[in-house]
């Protein structure tokens, strides 16, 4: 045993004290350097940050968005150079993670706008914070609640480049009724996207006055493990089933529906308008009807002389030459947000956060892949019902639904 003496203890304590003092000093020096760095950020190049769900359950959305932003950045840097620094952060689709990243970005003066997040669950709380912190948020998610508060008033600093989910609900209601189905059952994922979808679809059904819901919409866990049991709980005799959610739940539910209820027509929200969904659902997705952007249209059905079609064709070409796969509906949202930021820089040499907001509010007839944007002080979504098209899945491809009635 080592004998300890008061002197030894004293020496040990003094050394411990010195060590702790050094450690604490190091911490505060680091904090000081860090904060000094931030204070002097006034001279830095303007920065546009993107918060995307590159990993996690929504990675099929976030990866496409990240890839498009990276490709556009490379493309512009090769040509004229990009007037801003683009920083991409991964939120893993987690609202807490997204919020922390956003809070840190808000503290940096050089950050003039934030693109994203990818999902509604992240975007809704961030839209609230963006309004409080007066930072432009260019969300890539669908929920109408991102741009409108609980009292129906627009959120001044939140914009979105994905179609509102109420437009998707209206489009789906029209399509369901157009196919002669007057009763529909609904399943939705128990997340912000699904809940918001259930809410707007209820409204769309109420407005249609012809369509009725077979039962109250049923929530399902986003990572559903036993899909067949959920399909079996759908009321018998229902001719149409609407599944509103993102992967992997809908893919499994579509497989189960095809097997247990082959006579039911399956309808899907824009959360599944991606080639990744067709791969996941496999042959079971044949015949399912999906609403999505016009970017999924066959190039032959687009007209190069129409500005709205021209931008879609250009994006399809860009995507095909860069990635060699069918274009992504979600990638289109990121492209539109990026193009809108470029428009801001075209109008202002060194734009501030307020310049970004004002320029975006002034965009009229702005041609995007997702549709023609007409923003205003009261409308921060900017798209109309024509931003959605209905598709039927045939031979693993999205085919316009009108041709397949």
């Amino acid at each position, binding site marked *: 045993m080592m004998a300890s003496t008061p002197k030894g203890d004293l020496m040990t304590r003094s050394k411990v004290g010195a060590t702790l003092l050094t450690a604490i000093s190091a911490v505060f020096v*680091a904090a000081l350097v860090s*904060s000094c760095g931030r204070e002097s950020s006034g001279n830095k190049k303007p920065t546009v940050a993107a918060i995307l769900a590159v990993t996690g359950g929504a990675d099929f959305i976030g990866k496409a968005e990240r890839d498009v932003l990276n490709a556009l950045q490379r493309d512009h840097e090769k040509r004229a150079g990009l007037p801003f620094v683009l920083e991409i952060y991964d939120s893993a689709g987690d609202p807490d*993670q997204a919020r922390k*990243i956003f809070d840190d970005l808000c*503290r940096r003066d050089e950050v003039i706008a934030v693109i994203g997040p990818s999902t509604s669950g992240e975007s809704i709380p961030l839209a609230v914070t963006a309004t409080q912190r007066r930072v432009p948020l260019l969300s890539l998610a669908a929920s109408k609640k991102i741009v409108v508060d609980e009292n129906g008033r627009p959120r001044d600093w939140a914009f979105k480049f994905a179609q509102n989910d109420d437009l998707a609900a209206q489009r789906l209601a029209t399509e369901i009724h157009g196919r002669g189905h007057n009763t529909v059952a609904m399943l939705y994922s128990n997340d912000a996207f699904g*809940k918001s979808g259930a809410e707007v679809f209820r409204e769309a059904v109420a407005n249609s006055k012809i369509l009725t819901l077979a039962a109250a919409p049923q929530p399902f866990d986003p990572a559903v493990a036993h899909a067949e049991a959920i399909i*079996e709980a759908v009321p018998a005799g229902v001719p149409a089933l609407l599944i509103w959610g993102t992967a992997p739940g809908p893919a499994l539910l579509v497989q189960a529906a095809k*097997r247990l209820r082959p006579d039911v027509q399956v309808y899907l929200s824009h959360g599944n308008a991606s080639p990744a969904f067709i791969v*996941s*659902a496999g042959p079971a997705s044949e015949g399912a009807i999906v609403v999505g952007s016009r970017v999924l249209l066959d190039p032959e059905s687009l007209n190069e002389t129409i500005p709205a079609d021209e931008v879609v064709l250009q994006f399809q070409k860009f995507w095909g030459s860069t990635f060699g796969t069918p274009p992504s509906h979600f990638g289109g949202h990121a492209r539109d947000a990026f193009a809108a930021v470029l428009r801001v820089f075209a109008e202002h040499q060194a734009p501030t956060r307020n310049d970004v907001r004002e320029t975006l509010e002034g965009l009229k007839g702005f041609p995007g892949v997702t549709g023609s944007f007409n923003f205003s002080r009261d409308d921060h979504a900017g798209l109309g019902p024509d931003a959605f098209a209905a598709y039927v899945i045939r031979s693993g491809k999205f085919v316009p639904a009108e041709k397949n009635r």
Partner: protein
Amino acid sequence: VSVSTLLADIALYAGITAVISLTARGFRLYNLASGAWVLLGGWLSYWIVSPPATVPVDSPWFLLTAAIACMQVALPRLLRRQLVHQQIAYVFATIGIALLLDGAAPALLLRSYSAVIGLQGSVTHDALAVGAALAVAALCITIMRSARYAKAGVCFRLDGGHRLVAALVGCEIVLLLVLGAASASVHHGLFSSSLFWSIVPVLALLMTGRRPLLAMLIAGAAPAASYLLGKAVPGAAGVSMPFVIGGLGCLVIATSLISGARRMGRTGSGVALERPETWGLRNRNVRGLLVLVAIGVVLHLAFRLSAPDSTNTVWVTALAISGMLVLGYLGVFTVSVPIVGSLGAYVVVSLNQWPLALCAALILLGVAWVSYISLLRTMQEDYAVVADLALMLGIGYSIVSSATISGVEGIQLFGSDHETLDPTGWAIITLASGAFGIVCVYVSSAIPNLRARVVGLLGADSGRAHGAPVGLTRTIGMSLAAAIGIAGSFAYYSATGSISARSMSLERGLAVMVLASLMLRMEPGAGIAAVFVLFTLIVEVTSGTGTLVYASLGLGLVIVACLPSRGAGVGDGQHA
């Protein structure tokens, strides 16, 4: 649900039970990674038989899974000394492998985290699954009835025959892959549900005293029970399996109590009093301890300041300290700490307007947890570990399922105007938690003296001499662990601004126990520093996101399980 699908599901559970009986029956080694291998088998077959463009798999990563398979085959050799008396080390190691596979596969092997096997089930597919399960089960039973198998069991108990055990583990993995390949349309390759396929067969084996045929029947009954539950309660359709698993966990505890499979002498042996020196802060350790803590804090802060998206190190450290107390004082491996901590934080948030109700609810929660831990202490380790996993899986998923059914997603703690902490706030919290860790070490070293004094007051000299009774230490240890768990959880939720059912995950419980084990392998202060550094590094290396954090912790658990035991061991000398 179609009859053929249900039959295929039943056959798959029964088949997995037969396969893992190979090492469980003769050697008492429970493979808790079986579900992950089954799912991997499904992806492997899907990759082989389907056109490459239609399969969302990055094939080179299959090599990584081959390396993990080799690691599991090598485990009997690596754990040779421990396995003679502590077969539970194999359970921990296979939990680590399950975490590693479930974490790494969706992130690295699959192109999308949410990809599923795109096979639409058919009667032919189901018949194939049932046929494969029957053939595999018949093969396993034939092997188990052979004389060589019986001989290997005897050799193993005499500290030998590890090569044959390793061969059996390899055979087990191959058969699980075959089962998974034939049943791809049943399990869909969804890694987030792999624990279902792993834990039900082990529970069935424990309930039946490792009798394969009976265990196969019970495991096969689980999906049928899940289906019936979904039928009876439509809201539970699709989320009923966790309830069934929780029920099976209760049955395992009941079976253990009825059959008398208790851990004899466990309650009579001293815990902290046996080895106060290890827990005490000897003078020569003080400097090293404080230096390590300081280094840990500084490193953490450096990462914290430079990377704003890493968050929960403080929370994990607090939970690891409480896990260390539970593991160290009580010798109980439990993954319940974060779930109890989250429930406590939730109670504080929900009832803060009513102090009396808040106190009553916290006391009730504390009593329930102390009773639960005490119950686990009376059971054999294998029963206790697996029953704990099953119950916590049941409770955790039940909370999530209840949230799904009721439509509650999360609760904002401070309203929508709450801001997350800035770097200075994090710096203060980190420094405070470092100091908190040091206080915990001091308190833990003070408790044995406190207990000795109380025991002396009661005149229980003989108990003191033999290190018993330990009731007071247990109570103090558990209260402290519960308080730290709740405080840590509350700190985390305060920092993030919201509390949700999904944060009460089993993986976090396992992560906490990995870190707690690590802390026990070292001096407590060095352990705290190591947890700070390790968790920060893991979060940074994996960008703090996705399932790679859990994959890293899974690897950590395998390594911790393979480390040699320290002296008298942890707790009662039987847990590692």
